[in-house]
């Protein structure tokens, strides 16, 4: 079994020349597969926030949300949420464009991502190959992850299980309203928002949808907008005055001004 590994690499060169419609699909997987597993540790951040996260100066994703800092690198989300994050491909559909040489088909992947405990994201990506579209959509979904605020219906026992207040999200002609529900109700909605609400970590919720809910894309986006609004809604318990903290950029400015040492090839 150990011999097989070095023997493999010798053939990589031969593959490229063969081409052909079938060969392409099979060959490409190989080299990338083996390397992909090592890449995940080699993140070199390119934004200030990325550098702070990598060095562990930021303790949680919530700190980033508190200051509304834009997240431009998906590895930041991976760093904090990592394995808890589960992605789900909602739909892959072919989109066609008429060109002079016939029709060009590309694949569009719709992906939802969540950790079933307070974070949800949505992404869409179009590409010539299904795998590329899925991968791109997952990255965009990670970049769009937002926190979800949950609350209690009635008594404050156990963990929060429903939305804290009635929230509405709108996209296109579809508007989705999320309404708090008592414990044990489950999620009362159409399949698409149900998936999103489960991934967000909401256990009980009523929904009310208006507009052309046949446009599932807009339906999903409207639900996402509604879920994101839970933290945007100012409830009385947030009225308390909090001192103005300094943003991480300011607090760690001396760390950021130092150039990062080049990462050596470590063992």
């Amino acid at each position: 079994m150990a011999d097989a590994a070095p023997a493999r690499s010798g053939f990589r060169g031969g593959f490229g020349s063969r081409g052909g419609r079938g060969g392409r699909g099979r060959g490409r997987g190989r080299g990338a597969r083996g390397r992909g597993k090592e890449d995940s540790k080699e993140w070199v951040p390119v934004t200030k926030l990325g550098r702070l996260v990598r060095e562990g100066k930021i303790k949680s994703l919530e700190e980033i949300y508190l200051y509304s800092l834009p997240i431009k690198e998906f590895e930041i989300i991976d760093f904090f949420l990592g394995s808890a994050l589960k992605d789900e491909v909602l739909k892959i559909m072919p989109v066609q464009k008429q060109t002079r040489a016939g029709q060009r088909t590309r694949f569009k992947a719709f992906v939802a991502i969540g950790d079933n405990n307070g974070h949800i994201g949505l992404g869409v990506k179009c590409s010539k190959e299904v795998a590329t579209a899925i991968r791109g959509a997952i990255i965009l979904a990670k970049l769009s992850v937002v926190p979800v605020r949950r609350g209690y219906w009635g008594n404050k026992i156990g963990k929060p299980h429903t939305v804290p207040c009635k929230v509405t999200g709108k996209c296109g002609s579809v508007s989705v309203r999320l309404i708090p529900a008592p414990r044990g109700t489950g999620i009362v909605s159409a399949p698409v928002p149900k998936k999103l609400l489960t991934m967000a970590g909401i256990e009980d919720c009523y929904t009310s949808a208006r507009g052309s809910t046949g446009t599932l894309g807009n339906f999903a986006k409207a639900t996402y907008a509604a879920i994101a609004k839970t933290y945007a809604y100012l409830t009385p318990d947030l009225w308390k005055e909090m001192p103005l903290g300094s943003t991480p950029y300011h607090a760690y400015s001396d760390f950021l001004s130092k150039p990062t040492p080049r990462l050596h090839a470590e063992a």
Partner: protein
Amino acid sequence: MEHAVAVSGEDSSPEQIICSSQLKPSNNTAIKCLKCDKVYIFPNDKDDCLAHLYLEHRLVIADVEDIALLEDYLQYWEKEFQTHEFEQYCTTMFLDQLPDGKYAKNEKYYLLCDILPQDYELRRKLKEKRLSEALERHQFELTDRNFSKECLFCRTIIKGLRADYLDHLFDKHFLLVGKPEKLVYVDELLDHLEENLNRLMCLYCEKIFRDRPTLKEHMRKKGHKRINPNRREYDKYFLINYNGGPTAPTPRKQHHQKRRRETASVSTIADPETGSVDFDKHFARPDSDAEHDSDWSDWATDGEPSSIKCLYCHHLGDNFTLLKEHMHDVHRLDFEKATSSLNFYQRVKVVNYLRRQMCLLRCVTCDLHFDEEELLMEHMAQESHYGIGEKESWDKPEFFFPYIENDGLLCVLDDSGGDDPEVDTVRIISEDSLAQINKDAERLSLENFKL
């Protein structure tokens, strides 16, 4: 084929089994010849059928290998040719020989090709159909967790996603079949590989060996732990081949036609009036549809929309408005009026209460029990007991919970009613904020508060 269905039969609900056999491209279908009554069983008799068409009826189908679903194609044309003649649809050619090669003068032959717009459309639609079938199956395979198969090499049974199985083959045995995102009809592919291994045939060079250990040694030493890329029969397992992009069969004739149509509307020479060439129109990169990339509104169900069951009978309404109309016409109940003074939670309770009453065959107003549905309906119609019942009956906490699963009616209830939110208000408490301020700020705080 039967074997394959049995393996994936772990997903035991009947609709899934039907699904997997329908989507497999290699079903046995009986196709009748286009003109006479001979029947052929596809896919085995495909060549016989095409040969028969040529020899007996002098009909040739252009680019027959590129047609997506040949069975559907032939069935369509068989219907057409029942009422029309060959000449109406096919191009007629004159050749100087008989089908069996003997010399003759000016023999008529018919060519069925996609220069005919009907045929072109048909081929395109079949391609789309095949692609969407493959994508559906692909999506199912990506998410289905009921897959279970014994590994091809070791004796472990891998359960879960097909991706897990393929990963195992790669990690433990260095056999790369392909990336799970790029493969479709994985069950069939794995069975195919299993068959080859059982026949002691190397997957790559396809030589036969004496026994299993020799085969394993050979594959390991020569690095033959992959599929032969030259074998066309593996093509159908790779999603990229369903694309049919620029290399798609658009014959040159079509190309000319398109060219002519395009130049008529858009002239590539400089505009005589202003002397300028419209750069964007002619030279814009084909990838400039970036805004379509992030457009979510593309995704729409073209299947039947989910329908809502009426509260009293079995009628299904396509949407809430139609359903309300139905209830008004047939059951003389104005849902809007009856629930106008209720807030959202009360409406939910009403719906669940009515569902329960109908399920238990009890009248909604007087709670009389009936043995049959017709008797109940008659009673309610006669006594005008269609309604939402008394408040005491439905205003109970047990009706917060949906009585029927996936009750579409609960998802479209209007939230606007209910003027006094004070009555029946339930105290809703929000979760504590999870944000943490950094330590410096905390020290500066005037009060000590818990976050």
